């Protein structure tokens, strides 16, 4: 334990409105603490720089999974365990359930929240590639109002997001339009469980015969933020997967991905490996569409 806990303040405002009022009063002063699976690690290692924290873990109004005709709405305080146990998510958004299942261990899934995973903004986080592939939107709330932003526009840089200091991520909205889509996700971690991604790819594609009619790709650890792979998508859209075209399609897609990949060397892997394996995963997905 490398922090003096007496130097930190943590309060639990009674309601969401109270949290928003506090944030509005002194924007930037307070940091939200949900499941604690990130910030408490920083506390233990002496790296937690924020000294005034607001606990939102107890706010029931942020912990929900709502289903309407067009979308599933997930409260930011929903835990990974909640996501895994949700029949609606498992049925409509299987990649979501899958990525929740390999976020940390069971104990961490019981505490960690989807909102925390998004706002912590790690480029290696497990759920963002899925949200990018599914085209999620985020509902952000503050004392002065509510706004909705496409998730693909949320991450602005390394650990930088579009969230204003007085705002809180309220809901993650995921369209329920993937019934006819082929879906793929693969995480390459340091080991099979309790692992941080070296690279991960989530993909959804709609086929019209052997033509790719729609495609969306999200990746982890391929850039300084969770990244939608637009160049690879562009290379694939409307391409044909028949025997005559498949190899060229794969090559173009790999080239597209390579052009937009900006992975790094770090303690867990190398940039070269990440780029190459991302290409392999993409190829694995494309070839799986042929079957």
């Amino acid at each position, binding site marked *: *334990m*490398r*922090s*003096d*806990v*007496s130097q930190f303040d943590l309060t639990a405002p009674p309601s969401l409105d109270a949290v928003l009022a506090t944030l509005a009063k002194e924007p930037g002063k307070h940091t939200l603490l949900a499941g604690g699976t990130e910030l408490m690690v920083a506390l233990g*290692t*002496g790296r937690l720089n924020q000294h005034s924290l607001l606990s939102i873990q107890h706010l029931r109004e942020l912990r929900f999974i709502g289903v309407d005709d067009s979308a599933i709405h997930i409260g930011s305080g929903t835990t990974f365990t909640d996501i895994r146990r949700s029949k609606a998510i498992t049925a409509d958004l299987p990649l979501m359930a899958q990525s929740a299942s390999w976020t940390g261990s069971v104990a961490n899934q019981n505490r960690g929240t989807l909102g925390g995973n998004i706002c912590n903004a790690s480029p290696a986080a497990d759920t963002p590639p899925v949200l990018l592939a599914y085209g999620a939107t985020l509902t952000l709330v503050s004392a002065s109002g509510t706004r909705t932003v496409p998730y693909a526009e949320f991450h602005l840089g390394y650990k930088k997001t579009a969230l204003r200091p007085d705002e809180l991520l309220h809901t993650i909205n995921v369209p329920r339009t993937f019934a006819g889509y082929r879906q793929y996700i693969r995480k*390459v971690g*340091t*080991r*099979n*469980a*309790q*692992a*941080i991604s*070296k690279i991960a790819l989530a993909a959804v594609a709609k086929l019209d015969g052997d033509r790719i009619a729609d495609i969306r790709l999200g990746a982890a650890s391929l850039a300084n933020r969770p990244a939608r792979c637009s160049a690879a998508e562009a290379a694939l859209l409307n391409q044909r997967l028949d025997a005559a075209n498949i190899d060229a399609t794969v090559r173009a897609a790999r080239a597209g991905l390579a052009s937009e990949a900006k992975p790094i060397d770090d*303690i*867990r*892997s*190398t940039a*070269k*490996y990440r780029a*190459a*394996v991302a290409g*392999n*995963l993409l*190829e*694995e997905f494309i070839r799986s569409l042929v079957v």
Partner: protein
Amino acid sequence: MSERKPILGGSPIRKEGRAKVLGAAKYIDDQELPDMWFGATVRSSIARGTIRSITFSPEINWEEFAIVRASDIPGENTIVHLTKDHPCLAANEVNHPEEPILLLAHPDKTALIAAVRGVKIEYDELPGVFTIEESETAVENNDVERIIWPGSDQGGTANCFKTYLMYSGDAKETEDGLATAFENADFIVEGEYHTGAQEQLYIENNGVIAECFRDATGGIESLCVRGSMQCPYYLVHALTLVFNLPEDKCRVIQVETGGAFGGKEDFPSLIGSHAALLAMKCGHPVKITYDRAEDMAATTKRHPSRTRHRTAVSKDGKLLGGTIDVAIDGGAYATLSPVVLSRATIHAPGPYKWPHVRVKAKAMATNIPPHGAFRGFGAPQSLFGLERHMDKIAKTIGLTPEEFRRRNFLATGDCTATGQPLVEPVDMQGLLTRALREAGYHEKLARFAEENKTSSIKRGVGFASFMHGTGFTGSGERRLNSLVYLDVREDGRPEILVSSTEFGQGTNTILSQVAAQTLNLPYESIVVSPVDTSIVPNSGPTVASRTAMIVGKLVERASLQMLTLLRNEEKLPEAHTPEEFKAAALAYRAKHGSLRCSVRYEPPAKIYWDDELYRGDAYPGYAWAVYVAEVAVDMNTYMATCTRFDALQEVGMVMHPVLAKGQIEGGVAQGIGYALYEKCMWKDGRMMNNQMTNYIMPTSADLPPIHVHFEEVPSIHGPGGAKGIGELPMDGPAPAILNAIENATGVAFNTIPLLPEDIFERFTSFTDPELGGTEDMDPAVDRDTRVESAEVSA
């Protein structure tokens, strides 16, 4: 007398198991003493240099703290192992990152966080060396700037802690024999093999609580240190020097220890001395417990190694002769490196008949925290090289790995490379046959070859054959001269008094089994004394796979002595009941005040060992094994996974099947980690991934089914025919797995840990013209090492 089931060979409940499953077992961090303070260590931030200044931040009230520096040490500033190069606290110069320089204590442990940061140390930096090669180069070039270790009176020379030169016979005759062998060889096969550092990663970090007692004049009367450790008498010895006190004034108590694996063999001497110095300074008991980051960054790891083989082979697959050069990276101080190197040397030729072999070994100094003991102790390193090399030779000369080994295995009556005749039965042929059968090796070999043609997941099988000596090397056990007591307590229960410690491997349980079996008493009636050096005799350190065989035998002999005594003195009947035993023992106690049998080590058979020539009976006994690994290599992710493991060993009679299986499985798991996951990332001598998040040990989801098989052949050395078992399972997994990966992919990898990034680099180099061009398209060509086909015209 009622017939009782044999206790040895049964699986009674672990002695301290109930406390463990209840969460009631008290580890060191679960304990506190009245008015106890907490200690912390201020460490060097550089790898090598001299200390220019130490300043204390004015923002901290230093009056509240006890501060210990090198000049406060009442005795010698050394942590003694084999030589005295290792300071307790750095005085003027530092030789590795995280070297202890100052110690702080305070009643509130929170206050230490800021205080450690409030000590500013300035250095004049000196260049460091961080690999075996850099250390060698400095010596070769006589680069005095990079001679980081001066030599010692224990045979060390500049940058080199120790060397060994071991011949399979008379030195001159062996050299001549080697010359002839290489001249006449049909094939000469060379190879170079590397292993990395490995963290022990016991789940309980190092920790101790020390007390210092003063006499009437204020002088230091005595010390008491309790803590998590393997070898309490090592710490006693260390304290006698640091405090200049006699042994009986340095009391050490081992408390429940949450894993050790060698990592708590020599290191507790350091942290124990530190806590005792702080206790001396502040007048309170002082607890030091490391957190995970400090434990990983500052304490010992397995020695990295490089093994080079050059082997002369005939075309009918006979070893004609070989030279083996082993180098290990010892870190900044000698510590146990000479002993680790010794085991690496002796195990380097493996379970094979070498007409002529020469092993040259050296332990080099680097500016890395000293490497230390870790299960296997040098043998996993040199056996990795050997068992990879055996597959390479087989491939070169066109035999299967199985057939080549079969033509060269040692057998009963043969002599090992040190000239030790194998008097007890050895059946490597039989072990190999059974291991391959248990693993379904031949069927898989054929099936995978077929399936791999069309699959992006390449599967393979491989194996390693090896042995591990149990007990101390050569004359080591005679020197240790271990002593064991067996008492009968006031309540009539026998009590075993040994310094052998329990840290999960089952010491308490198996020694109780031995006593119960021999005394013909229920297992439950046996008591194991707390390991407190004021009570227990020195039965040697708990290392080197020696406890079951050596200490177990002493407990067996003490038990027999007790029966004889009670039969002679108290007319205990030959076939006694527990009640009769108790009555006789209590009657004896009533007359004599106590009942104690004490037994000292005696070699059960004649053991000759020449420490100068490194020849003779290297170990009292060997455990023999064949391990088979099955792997899958995913060509999309370059990840190699072990998908099944079969471990067959001959370890004498199995004392406790459940514990023994647990030992083997645990060792295999560590071996799989060593091969495929666990990499220490170094930067200028500092471990960069000193967190569990970034040092990757296998979880329950990463390990394959591990099938454990025993071949039971009674040994004369251990109690009930048992031999040592603790280290053996660490030796085989890494070479077996890399052999399997070669079988799966056709590519030879000769460095561990082997991470997906390494496999990726190697595979992509085949197709990248800048990295080698077209000849590398053939994965059968081994780019790591050179293969000479010295085919003599037939």
